[in-house]
């Protein structure tokens, strides 16, 4: 059974690493699918907590979440296996095809440009879906809705640093929590 959990962890995170385009947030829907829906490793609220933890600790979100989920499910070995899973696609692709890709990317290829052009709006759709499901997990009452609205505005109007937004969220949580 333990071995099966390890295999599942590796394979799930391998997929997450392989299909994550456009930075951390775009892979949140895939992580939710694998971690919450398919395997039931975490609840939606716990998942939102990991994203918050990942924002406040060093390193990419995917690696943070791999270490976290891996440890929760299968201890230290689990965290190593899941982390290896998420970095393996990058290692395999870049260490085998790196030179080829570096020269290929410089050749202006209209097909490639079209694909990249099409991936961008798809990435935005995925991030929007991520925002919706994180909103469902986090906006549980009036206070949290107001908090999210205020922090959203602070970010888009005043370009507030994400790190400070997270810190502000923690402070507001301490003040507004219905104890």
């Amino acid at each position, binding site marked *: 059974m333990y071995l099966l959990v390890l295999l599942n962890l590796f394979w799930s995170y391998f997929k997450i690493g392989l299909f994550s385009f456009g930075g*951390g947030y775009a892979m949140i829907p895939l992580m939710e699918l694998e971690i919450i829906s398919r395997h039931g490793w975490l609840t939606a609220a716990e998942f*939102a907590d990991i994203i918050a933890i990942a924002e406040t600790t060093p390193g990419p979100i995917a690696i943070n979440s791999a270490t976290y989920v891996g440890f929760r499910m299968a201890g230290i070995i689990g965290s190593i296996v899941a982390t290896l899973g998420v970095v393996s696609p990058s290692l395999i692709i870049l260490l085998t095809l790196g030179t080829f890709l570096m020269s290929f990317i410089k050749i202006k290829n209209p097909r490639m440009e079209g694909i990249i052009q099409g991936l961008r709006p798809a990435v935005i759709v995925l991030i929007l879906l991520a925002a919706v499901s994180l909103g469902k997990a986090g906006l549980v009452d009036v206070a949290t809705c107001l908090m999210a609205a205020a922090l959203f505005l602070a970010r888009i109007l005043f370009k507030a640093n994400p790190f400070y937004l997270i810190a502000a969220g923690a402070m507001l949580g301490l003040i507004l929590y219905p104890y």
Partner: protein
Amino acid sequence: MENNVTENKNKLPTATRVPLLKILLAFLKIGAFTFGGGYAILPIIRQEIIHHLKWVDAEGFMDILLVTQSLPGSVALNCSIIVGRRLRGTIGGLAAALGIVIPSFLTILFLVAFLLPVVQESIFVQAVFYGLRPAVAALVASTVWELGKEFAGDRLSIIIFITLLPVSLILHLHPVLVLALGALLGLLCFQK
């Protein structure tokens, strides 16, 4: 042929072999100071790799960015692997990846193994997470806004977005399928 020329040019700044330990330590440092991941890491990589260590020149770094942005995986991780590989081949790439991963790995391990079990039941920790969840939702939503603004003037992007959004919302499409559909629409509709 041209391929070889670019590779050599990019290798130029380092006449001597860079020790593996130096690669590992450089990326450990970068990994330890990148909060939030993604694009937040780029200014730090740029500072260390181009200006401080002079492992890659500015132009070479632009090429690396181009490649990493069109490949799957974390931008930070991909950049590191390419730079490490350039300096010392496969083993250099592995050293760089290890350097980027270790700070993140150890921090989370410390949190989840030692800190969280002790404090999780505390009402104050619950309160902090109560506030962190809406903050994260707001942060992710603001990213949609920021990225959306960049493509607001581009008709093809808007059309693909408007097509994909309702389809993926209603049909609960697999995220990979959303990406594939986007790539397909881009391939079919893109004109020079």
